[in-house]
């Protein structure tokens, strides 16, 4: 699935998300729902900076930072990342964080899928009409 479609699906299923941007790890925008392109770019750049600062904020060594929520009275910012991309989203105040994270992770996964590779289909039950008519 391409990035634009993954982001369109995200905003369709998650009514809490006001705006979102899907970007490379360096902040280069793949797709955005921001009203203006420049705003999407600025949001992606700020999200990259936020992730970097958050990486440094943890004083103890440990595993890789994969997602964060910054909650403020005027709204929340969510960022989820994998090895190649990040998705940042803005919501209103007091969102359902678990759902937002789930939807953002799904969006990242879909955006990373090979568009040529189709989802596995369920096998149809073979029609076995041939054997029934015997005798």
């Amino acid at each position, binding site marked *: 699935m391409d990035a634009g479609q993954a982001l369109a699906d995200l905003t369709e299923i998650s009514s809490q998300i*006001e*705006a979102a941007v899907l970007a490379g790890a360096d902040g280069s925008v793949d797709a955005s729902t*921001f009203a203006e392109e420049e*705003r*999407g770019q*600025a*949001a992606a750049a*700020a*999200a990259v*900076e*936020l992730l970097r*600062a*958050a990486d440094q*904020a*943890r004083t103890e060594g*440990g*595993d*890789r*930072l*994969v*997602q*964060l*929520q*910054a*909650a*403020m*009275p*005027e*709204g929340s*910012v969510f*960022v989820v990342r994998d090895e190649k991309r990040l998705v*940042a989203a*803005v919501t209103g*105040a*007091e969102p359902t*964080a678990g759902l937002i*994270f789930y939807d953002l992770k799904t969006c990242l996964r879909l955006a990373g899928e090979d568009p040529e590779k189709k989802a596995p289909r369920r096998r149809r039950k073979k029609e076995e009409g041939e054997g029934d008519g015997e005798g």
Partner: protein
Amino acid sequence: MAAGSLAGAFLWRRRSGRTREHVDLYFADGSMVSFGDDSPQAAHLLPLARRVLSQAR
């Protein structure tokens, strides 16, 4: 009496309290760290988050 006081305090806090600012970080190993608004980490991270937020509005 004590239970009533606790319930009252809870309701008062709930009514009067705005959403407390905080930043929650989640790591690949499943661990999580939360920085409250009185922490230096949050003081550093929240302005960056506001920059993201401001682009949407």
